[in-house]
């Protein structure tokens, strides 16, 4: 079979699967270069130690011992939890209008969970030892236990099973095509024939899996909130609001990113029909509700910090409102308030504009990153209960490079998946 013949065999596959364009190849090369750069930065850190980062000890060193890695771990875990939850809600509530984005959301979850796990590994001083000692000596009393088990391992397993089951039908349909990818589709379908009995069994299984995913999302992301919210010795962290705010901000960032991905794929695959305005209207409405809820949490947190707070809480609130962290705080608030206004306007007028929605998705994600940073860093640099004096934290090129490398890895995995497996449900009529 000639190369031309191979290409023509892929022509019939839906959603551009197997068709490698020049633009796509360029994107993959660029992403590979960024991943390589991130890997190089990590190798520097691995060899020389965390001294190459901007993190230092709390106290006499006047630093922050957790920095960008933990902030992005929380961000990635949030996006992941929200992604699969959207997929589960689509299944549970029969939101057929959103079925086109279900697999995008499932894939987003799997990939961002991997990125979340990598960002924790990047943060650990002894990552290899951790891989052995965590299973050997795990202590459920530590809030980290929930992060490693529920938020990463449990969710990753659950999401992979969900992605696999939900994709079996499409794998069966794709296996009808005579392409080099057929063995993969056959393996994925694993004997599935799309009979009415099999469909029913799948429907029931994914339904119960979806039911399990919702409470798992809330508990998993709550444990991540508890990593901070249980620490009485760190003003700004010790708060009952921490946990629900974590869950809601996870929803904001996850739905926002899903919106952006759906819009990119809509343009790339020219699927204006399947990814119509209806899909974006739903996602926009979700995003609006979640963003307003999170803004409410921000207002309540600032009010309690000022009104009845311990003097350390007051100091922290002042630090955020007009101190060293004010630019990040107000920047994040603006990047939440502006999309909230835009979304509200579109909801009232009933005119949903996709570029405006994408802008909202980007803005809320930048805001979520800013808020995660503000949760992690100021309480360490400025909020020691003993009078050590203020410290500072400035990330180095190593930390930035590793984070950029992780984003590139995520985009790369997404781009590769899109060329191997249909990113949306395959319509029956489109298959031979």
């Amino acid at each position, binding site marked *: 079979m000639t190369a031309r013949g191979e290409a023509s065999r892929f022509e019939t596959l839906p959603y551009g699967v197997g068709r490698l364009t020049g633009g796509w190849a360029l994107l993959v090369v660029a992403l590979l270069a960024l991943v390589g750069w991130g890997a190089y930065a990590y190798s520097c850190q691995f060899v020389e130690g965390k001294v190459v980062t901007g993190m230092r000890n709390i*106290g006499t060193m006047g630093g922050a011992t957790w920095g960008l890695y933990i902030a992005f771990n929380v961000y990635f875990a949030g996006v992941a939890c929200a992604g699969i939850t959207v997929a589960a809600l689509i299944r549970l509530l029969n939101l057929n209008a959103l079925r086109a984005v279900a697999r995008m959301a499932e894939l987003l979850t799997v990939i961002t969970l991997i990125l979340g796990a990598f960002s924790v590994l990047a943060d650990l001083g002894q990552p290899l030892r951790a891989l052995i000692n965590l299973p050997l000596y795990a202590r459920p009393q530590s809030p980290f236990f929930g992060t490693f088990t529920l938020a990463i391992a449990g969710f990753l397993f659950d999401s992979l099973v969900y992605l696999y089951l939900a994709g079996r039908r499409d794998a069966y349909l794709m296996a009808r095509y005579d392409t080099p990818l057929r063995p993969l589709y056959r393996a994925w379908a694993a004997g599935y024939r799309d009979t009415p009995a099999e469909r029913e069994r799948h429907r029931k299984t994914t339904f119960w899996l979806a039911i399990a995913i919702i409470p798992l999302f809330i508990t998993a992301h709550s444990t991540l909130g508890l990593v901070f919210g249980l620490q009485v010795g760190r003003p700004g962290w010790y708060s009952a609001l921490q946990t629900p705010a974590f869950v809601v901000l996870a929803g904001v960032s996850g739905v926002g990113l899903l919106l952006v991905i759906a819009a990119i794929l809509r343009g790339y695959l020219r699927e204006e029909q399947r990814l119509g305005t209806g899909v974006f209207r739903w996602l926009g409405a979700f995003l609006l509700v979640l963003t307003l809820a999170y803004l409410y949490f921000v207002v309540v947190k600032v009010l309690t910090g000022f009104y009845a707070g311990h003097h350390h809480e007051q100091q922290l609130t002042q630090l955020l409102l007009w101190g060293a962290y004010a630019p990040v705080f107000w920047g994040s608030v603006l990047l939440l308030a502006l999309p909230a206004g835009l979304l509200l306007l579109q909801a009232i007028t009933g005119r949903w504009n996709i570029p405006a929605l994408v802008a909202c998705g980007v803005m809320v994600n930048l805001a979520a990153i800013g808020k995660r940073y503000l949760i992690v860093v100021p309480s360490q640099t400025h909020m020691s209960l003993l009078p050590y004096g203020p410290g500072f934290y400035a990330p180095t090129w190593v930390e930035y490079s590793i984070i950029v490398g992780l984003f590139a890895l995520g985009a790369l995995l997404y781009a590769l998946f899109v060329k191997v497996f249909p990113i949306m449900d395959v319509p029956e009529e489109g298959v031979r």
Partner: protein
Amino acid sequence: MAKYAMVIDLERCVGCRACMEACKVENDTPQAVFWMYVFRFEEGRYPNTRVWFLPRPCMHCDNAPCVKVCPVGARYKRPDGLVATDWERCIGCRYCEVACPYGVNYFNWKAPEKNYYLDWKDRDLGPVTHGATPPYKNPDLEKPYGPERRRIAGGGHLKGVIEKCTFCVHRVEKGQTTACAQACPVFAIQFGDLEDPNSTVSRLLKKRPHFRLLEEAGTQPRVFYLGGHPPGGEVRQIEGVKARV
């Protein structure tokens, strides 16, 4: 079973920081790491100012937040009250550090070969020691301790793990006192067994009013302060150490 505690008399402390020096030499800690730290405070307004000092070792809390959060049990409470760090088990997540309200934990940001308080390879040191190279590592710091036989003394200083004041477990298990208490020229630091009613620490706590740092955090520290008062919001640190690696 002994119940170890430290009593620090703030009325005696002259802020000489000999305890900091003794701790560094005894435990061979890396540069910019102060398992024992002495705050030098100033309070009031000129001319009515007062200078006072507050030594700060690890508090070896009975309800230690660092022990609670450790995901692998590397940080643990011994029956005799010492809060120990098993540097062979630590994975370097630094959760203990963010959980501790006292700022006593130090992470090894890099391999400390050239980073010790005294660099024995330093050329300028040769004339002082007449070319002699003292033992680089105190073998006592490397040994396992306690019935659990875990490595918890000040050895290692491995890159990527957390460490802190051990209450000189390697000395205490030999029946000695801590290095900081040993070095204090004015006997401001006392270390001993609270279970023994005749120990200096028991007699001092029976005789004189005392406080513990951040009692409101519920950590139940094993370090007691005599005289003075906890540092409030009005104190200013004189020449606060901001050494970084």
